């Protein structure tokens, strides 16, 4: 949906001008999920009402609902409307016409998602982007999908990057730093469990985003000070990762294999990390050595959302 309909200019204009767009994750609505009870109940009520109205419904589905809460049309992903921007726009225009809706401004200003709010002021928020790469000459570069984004042809897991945000508490991020005094030749092994909190997100876009289904078979990370300048330490990270990560939710034989290189800048008194960047080098994902897909992962520390 993001690659096709939700990247289509006409669908976006219809959503902003005639509808009240809202989305909710089914995962957040499951037992133990973060969605409030009232949200789960509303989602369930709309789902049941759609079924009672003999409309198609599903877990991945768009529901077009009257202001009174009555579903009048649906577009499940497993049918041919939701991910086809032309057909979805037609469905939306039909509902607009039937309900006599007049065009207006977006009721909520569009704004990019900036990640979750940090739980603590001294946390380190790390943003991780992963994407499939393809070879152009001697380089591996992101797919160029500028011509197909927003069309039905753009459907595919590889056509957009995925993003994750990882919050490291102070107790966590301090374990990435050297345990004792810092000198120009200091070398150390950053804490593997804390490193794993970030590197667990080193997998390309897949249907499965459940980190509990990852299995870290190899994780090594070493660090070495490169410079100390006016109380600011810059150190280089080098590491290697091999991780089982199923593409779908069922088990399979797909593995991530990647080297990672990065840099951390921190105050010599270890009161804060100024910046952290880590990228993959030669990362692949796939089922066996003859069948590996290049991808890239880039992690960087960011200012937490307010």
């Amino acid at each position: 949906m993001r690659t096709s309909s939700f990247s289509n200019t006409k669908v976006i204009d219809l959503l902003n001008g005639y509808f009240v767009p809202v989305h909710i994750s089914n995962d957040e609505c499951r037992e133990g999920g973060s969605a409030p009870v009232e949200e789960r109940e509303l989602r369930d009520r709309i789902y049941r009402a759609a079924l009672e109205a003999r409309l198609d419904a599903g877990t991945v589905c768009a529901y077009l609902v009257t202001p009174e809460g009555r579903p009048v049309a649906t577009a499940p992903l497993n049918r041919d409307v939701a991910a086809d921007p032309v057909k979805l726009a037609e469905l939306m225009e039909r509902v607009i016409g039937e309900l006599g809706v007049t065009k207006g401004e977006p009721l909520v200003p569009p704004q990019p998602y900036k990640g979750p709010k940090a739980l603590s002021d001294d946390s380190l928020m790390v943003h991780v982007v992963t994407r499939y790469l393809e070879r152009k000459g001697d380089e591996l570069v992101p797919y160029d999908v500028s011509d197909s984004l927003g069309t039905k042809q753009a459907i595919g897991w590889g056509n957009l990057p995925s993003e994750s945000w990882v919050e490291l508490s102070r107790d966590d991020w301090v374990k990435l730093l050297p345990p004792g005094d810092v000198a120009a030749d200091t070398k150390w092994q950053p804490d593997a469990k804390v490193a794993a909190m970030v590197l667990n997100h080193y997998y390309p876009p897949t249907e499965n985003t459940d980190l509990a289904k990852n299995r870290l078979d190899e994780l090594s990370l070493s660090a070495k000070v490169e410079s100390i300048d006016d109380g600011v330490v810059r150190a280089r990270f080098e590491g290697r990762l091999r991780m089982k990560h199923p593409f779908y939710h069922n088990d399979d034989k797909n593995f991530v294999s990647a080297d990672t290189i990065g840099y951390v800048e921190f105050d010599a008194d270890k009161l804060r990390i100024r910046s952290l960047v880590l990228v993959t080098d030669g990362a692949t994902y796939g089922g066996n050595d003859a069948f590996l897909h290049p991808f890239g992962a880039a992690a960087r520390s960011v200012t937490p959302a307010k």
Partner: protein
Amino acid sequence: MRVRAICVALTSLMAMSAWCAVGTFDRACRVQAGEPQASRRDADWVHQRVAAWQPTKEERAFDEIGWVPDIRQAMRLAQEHGRPVFLFTYDGANLACYRC
């Protein structure tokens, strides 16, 4: 021939449930794994990669939609403004992760 065989094997593996994966892997089959050796992997190289792999404006078209934070607010705004609600339910941690 070898590439074609690989594609067939991959498609068989991945087509088990999600139709939307096929495009990705057909495309991925066209490239070889592994990266060219760079002479140096220094800090500039790392930062260039971080920048090059960030989502582009076109890839973030989704963010141009004025999403309402939750269904309760959506229903309230719908009644106030006489607009229908467009509710999208999906699987995954959040829509920033779920990008099919």
